[in-house]
């Protein structure tokens, strides 16, 4: 099949072609969803290098399991669920949850990006961005994940519920807590 034909194909056609072993067809699906999949991984692990690697693993796993994909959920939601599962497993294995508080924490946080080899904090534009990044670090991974999936990735409550395999009520309650907590932390930073 020509490249142009692949680009014009519907998502269902691309999935079927990929099932038949057409890696180029799957490559088009990767291009369509890579940004969002990286975003989901990033929401969970909060590290750029890890998020890229986990996103790649997500697509590999998805390709290997295309035969198990059913049309009950959308392909994107299925993909994001794989990304979330892989990322959550990674986070548990690596144990990378850091809670930094106060002056000592700020010094530690400033050192982190160069030591870890990413520019996560450095890339934040403006003072508000930097403060917000610090505040996000203080959330638990579960709360940070839901608020980033909702606000940054734009997933609906039902999609978040399906991706994280959490009840909708849990998603709503975590969102509420995360928003409240971020407001409080930002207020504290303002007054601090």
């Amino acid at each position, binding site marked *: 099949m020509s490249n142009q034909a692949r680009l014009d194909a519907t998502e269902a056609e691309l999935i079927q072609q990929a099932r038949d*072993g057409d890696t180029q067809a799957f490559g088009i699906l990767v291009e369509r969803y*890579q940004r969002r999949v990286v975003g989901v991984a990033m929401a969970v692990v909060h590290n750029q290098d890890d998020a890229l690697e986990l996103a790649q693993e997500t697509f590999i796993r998805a*390709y*290997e399991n295309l035969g198990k994909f059913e049309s009950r959920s959308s392909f994107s939601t299925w993909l994001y669920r794989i990304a979330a599962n892989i990322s959550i497993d990674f986070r548990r294995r690596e144990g990378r949850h850091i809670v930094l508080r106060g002056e000592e924490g700020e010094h530690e946080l400033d050192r982190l990006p160069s030591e870890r080899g990413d520019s996560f904090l450095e890339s934040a534009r403006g003072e508000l961005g930097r403060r*917000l990044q610090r505040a996000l670090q203080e959330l638990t991974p579960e709360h940070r994940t839901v608020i980033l999936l909702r*606000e940054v990735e734009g997933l609906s409550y039902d999609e978040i519920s399906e991706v994280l395999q959490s009840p909708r009520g849990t998603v709503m309650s975590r969102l509420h807590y995360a928003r409240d907590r971020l407001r409080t932390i930002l207020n504290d930073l303002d007054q601090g």
Partner: protein
Amino acid sequence: MTDCDEIQLLLGAVQDGEAEPHEMALVDAHLDRCPACPAALRSYEALGVALRELPGFPIPRQFAQNVTKRLTRLQGGGRWRLAQLGRSLGAFGSALEIAGVAAVAAIVTVLVATPYLHSSGLRMHPVQGAAQSPISSTAQAVAIQPVGLAKGAGQADEFRQAEVQNVAGKIEDADAAATLDTQEMVSALGGGSGPSVAVWNEPRTDTTVVWIPDQR
């Protein structure tokens, strides 16, 4: 819980467009008369804007290409072929996996148990019969039957010497011994009408061999 506490639980859902119609009506009515909650709603909106404005990082241009390259390499590997075989078998794929796991478990069990079988007095002796065996010509298929333990050290030595001679003789006749009736051997092992697993000793390498015929 005050009215404001209850309403603020719903503010996020209202902002996200996820509130039910009756919840929207409740929040609207409260916001008209409360000075604090509209400020909370505005702060949630501002928070959302600030989060969306956080700079993302660029995804490498080669990302999709790297993925497809890895997939192409994987497709050439045994792991991929096994997964493909499983998929093509459809419903039998999972049964195949279970059979595979059971086979591995059987092999591991025999390999681990063999030293204990020897020490408990189990001996192997050849089973004669017609040929149907996938084993190499240098191996001899034997059945495992419990034998009485030799009484006293002297008799145990004689017994062992006899066994050594027996095995040595059988190695010389390996080619002839290769033509053994597997069905008969397996039946001798554990009874039952159908083949399950065949076990024999490969004397040259002192290895216990397990053969699992196709299960039907």
